């Protein structure tokens, strides 16, 4: 039986950050807003 090994590609940190940079920033912004809104709603619910 052949055993396949995963080929790990060299991770280019610069490209990891710069590739689709603005889309990454926008999604980070949305993620923070969503998190704040949901956690706010949960705390409100707990107070009741």
């Amino acid at each position, binding site marked *: 039986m052949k055993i396949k090994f995963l080929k790990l590609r060299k991770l280019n940190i610069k490209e990891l950050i710069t590739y689709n940079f603005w889309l990454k920033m926008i999604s980070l912004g949305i993620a923070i807003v969503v*998190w704040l809104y949901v956690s706010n709603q949960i705390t409100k619910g707990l107070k009741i």
Partner: protein
Amino acid sequence: MFLRFLNARTILEIIILWAVIYRVLVSLKGTRGVYIIRGIIVLIISYFIFQKLGLTVLIWLLTNFFAFYLIIIVVIFQPELREALIKLGQRHIFYKGLGKEEIEKILREIVSAVSILSRKKIGALIAIKREMGLKDYIESGVMVNADLSSELLQNIFHPLAPLHDGGVIVEGPKIVAASCLFPHSDSLNLEKGIGMRHRSGIGLSEHSDALVVIVSEENGHISLAINGQLTGDLTSDDLLTILKGQLSK
């Protein structure tokens, strides 16, 4: 206020949310799905404005319409949503770029095919996908999903081949689709004698960030359309240099 909540668990939650939202946005980019996001944003902004102004009737209408809107979205965009969910399971959540060697290999195959087609005066239209998705154009053609090679490109554009009409879309090391319909450019600045193949190439480069290589069947001239601008009469070496420069940005 935000810093008060900041701890390891919060950061983990935000990173997971970020990854999911990023993947969804990437898969929606360049598709009709962008309009869903725009619609949702307009509804959310309107909701907050109505809430501030205390317009209860409009809030009621909007809340009920929003639920209805979500159902419509799920029904109409079922294929896109399915694809977005599939992509969530892919490796490299934040990374999908190609290495320099891979880019060089892809370009060598494309330029080799283009120079042979140019010598034989066989028309060709090749779109190289960059960041923006080209799903709508891929769906207009025939799915190929084959490893990119000069021979395959020559075969596709052979005048007797069934897929020679229309454009080929290249995504990374794959020929994704052939015989695709590209939008024609409506630009009035174009020369009157310019053919439909060139118009389609320029049109696609206006509607997306793709690089479109065009070979004229009249005179075998090689042209390249980038952002709605056509550069004509290129040699294969020129083409390779420009494409390399554009793809390594």
